[in-house]
């Protein structure tokens, strides 16, 4: 059972992000960290491989400047090897190019029984990359997976829906996207951190994977303008006249939160 996890490396959400004034793209020149959305995928992969009893977890990523910090976190958690695609020619790549690159990276690693991605990344959140990877590789895809089991050659997924979840089955190999919070990602252990630096982590270019065209040239889209989000409206104040709880319940029901 070999699993490849797509891990996006993003600027630390704790420090304020900045946009490039000319391209309107997110600046990614500093240190990048493992997107928390993908830590769930790594954890799920490690658990699935452990319960299968054999196999490895690999991670693939596309990021500028040869950045591997976030991938090293995944290796420290227990992934066995990594493949990074980093290439100045990829600057400005849209989600489809990203998917093509990641699909090629998976193929370069020799394919996998299962490919796991996050439902959406924390910084770009188009939520489209996983299905596009599936299409590029000609594989079935299941999105919004909240529980995953492998039964021989059958993948069984509880797929989050608005009202509950659907039980879905599909054949392997496949691509799934997992929702946040499905598993509790482990902390890298001290031993894991020490071992991570000995694990193979290869860096290739888009050219090495024969993906063309890339970057702004390939993007079927252009960021024309970026404007401030609308300021948050003042909240509603409920005076407690002894019946306030009813109004709060109604408010939450209205938002479909309860």
């Amino acid at each position, binding site marked *: 059972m070999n699993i490849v996890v797509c891990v996006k490396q993003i600027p630390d959400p704790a420090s304020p992000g900045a946009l490039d004034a000319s391209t309107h793209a997110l600046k990614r020149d500093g240190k990048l960290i493992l997107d928390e959305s993908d830590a769930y995928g790594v954890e799920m992969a490690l658990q699935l491989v452990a319960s299968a009893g054999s196999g490895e977890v690999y991670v693939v990523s596309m990021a500028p400047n040869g950045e591997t910090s976030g991938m090293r*976190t995944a290796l*420290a958690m227990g992934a066995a090897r990594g493949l990074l695609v980093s290439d100045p020619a990829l600057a400005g790549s849209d989600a489809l190019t990203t998917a093509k690159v990641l699909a090629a990276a998976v193929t370069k690693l020799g394919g996998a029984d299962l490919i796991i991605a996050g439902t959406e990344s924390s910084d770009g959140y188009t939520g489209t990359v996983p299905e596009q990877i599936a299409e590029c590789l000609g594989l079935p895809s299941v999105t919004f997976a909240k529980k995953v089991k492998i039964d021989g050659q059958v993948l069984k997924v509880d797929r989050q829906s608005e009202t509950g979840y659907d039980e879905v089955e599909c054949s392997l190999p496949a691509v799934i996207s997992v929702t946040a919070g499905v598993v509790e990602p482990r*902390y890298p252990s*001290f031993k894991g951190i020490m071992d991570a630096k000995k694990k193979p982590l290869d860096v290739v270019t888009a050219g090495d994977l024969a993906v063309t065209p890339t970057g702004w040239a390939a993007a079927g889209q252009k960021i024309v303008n970026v404007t401030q989000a609308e300021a948050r409206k003042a909240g509603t104040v409920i005076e407690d006249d002894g019946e306030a709880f009813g109004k709060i319940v109604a408010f939450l029901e209205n938002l479909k939160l309860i």
Partner: protein
Amino acid sequence: MSTDIVAKDLVDAARAIELADSVIGKAVRTLAATGGPDEQQVLAYDLAHASAAVETARSMLDYGAKGEVEATLTCAFVADMVQDLVSRLIGREKLWGVDPSVMAESHDFVSKFRDPRLLASLADKPGPRHLDDDHEMVQATFRSFATKMIAPHAEHVHRENLDVPEEIISGLAEIGAFGLTIPGEYGGFSEGGDGEYMASCIATEELSRASLGIGGSLITRPEILTRALVKGGTEAQKHEWLPKLASAEVMASVAVTEPDYGSDVASIKTTATPTQLDGKDGYAINGVKTWCTFAARSNVLMLLARTDPDRAKTHRGLSVLIVPKPRGEAHGFMFTQPHGGRMEGRPIDTIGYRGMHSYEIAIENWWVPADHLIGETAGLGKGFYYQMEGFENGRLQTAARAVGVMQAAYEAAFDYAQNRKSFGKNIGEYQIIRAKLGRMAVVIQGARQFSYAVAKLMGKGQGSMEASLVKAYVCKAAEWVTREAMQIHGGYGYAEEYAVSRLFVDARVLSIFEGADETLCLKVIARRLVETTR
């Protein structure tokens, strides 16, 4: 500031350190000639602290070369150290045998870097840590663990005087926090480089930033016992105990202090007497220990006892025993052994450092097998040395704990200052508040960088003097930093509902335990200064 000026400032800083060092050297020779640390306690104490500040400053020079903010923090630290030295010296020149004009050469440098405007400009520039990739990951991991697992409990445990939540212990064990300095062949993660002591420092700072009582201090006891076992344990003992310490299957507490003997460890009275039980060799322990932290929850006591009945042998009559015990209730415990051995623990209520609880323990005829004495027969009479070896590690670890508490205090004060208005302005805009925050940034980074330097030395099997220096300097600094952080909070700082009040009472213990400040300065640091300055 241009880089040329920065480079020149660093040269001036190095010169100021050299001058300060020569002042201390001279005064130490006077100390030696006028009766030594036991006679001239105040002089010896001042020299110990001055020396700790000088060594901290020295360890910062490399850091200062890494960039402009780093250089400014370094120079401000050096200027602070010179001011401290001179104020200790003034009016006591004869006692020191030093002419204070020696420091005049550094006057312009000190003026530049004690300028309140310069300090104020550092309020929001705590400086990067400059860790390598692995250590950055260690920091990120422990920060994330501490934020999710420890911080949410910190206030509650403190205010209700509750116990350390078990999931913190098991979580830390999973990450490997208890095996950082345990060699790989004994179930730990140490590969013998200098990286492990660094990692332990970094982890401890992050855990203590969330809580001293239920975070960073959990590592201290296993570290002390580990070091003693690595130093004096037989092969069989290392194989028996180290893997269990690494996995937290065995949690330890340290039973050294007695009601009548705290700093004066060599005089302790608790005895371990060779006694057979059911035909097996062993020791029967009798005596009273106090301040034994974590003694209810722990599975073993690392107990220092007199194995030689000849009290004239003082520290050469002591041995360290590993004393297994059941887990007990936090509010007090009483255990018995089938043959009649007894152990009774009474908790001591404290103003801070809550969660692990400290106990006075009365021990009567408590029996342990002979192989529980560290080093077995070869370890008889060597307990004091093994214990001190362990405490060295404990001192570095305690310095790292202090850095974590200071960091938390600085962050709390900084945030508060940005959001509290007085006379129409955020207090964070007033010079005096900014200068306080700036000095905090300087002191914390200095403390941190020195603890890293000591960690690297300890990884090489050196650094015993430096571990005492870093403990003395950093723990005292933590009192000032938490005091000022509380002050910046005004009245709210005195309210229990603000975390800074906890940081203030927690910081207070740091100069008392792991070597009371005065004793550490007089009996360890000043003595060593006299020995090494001829």
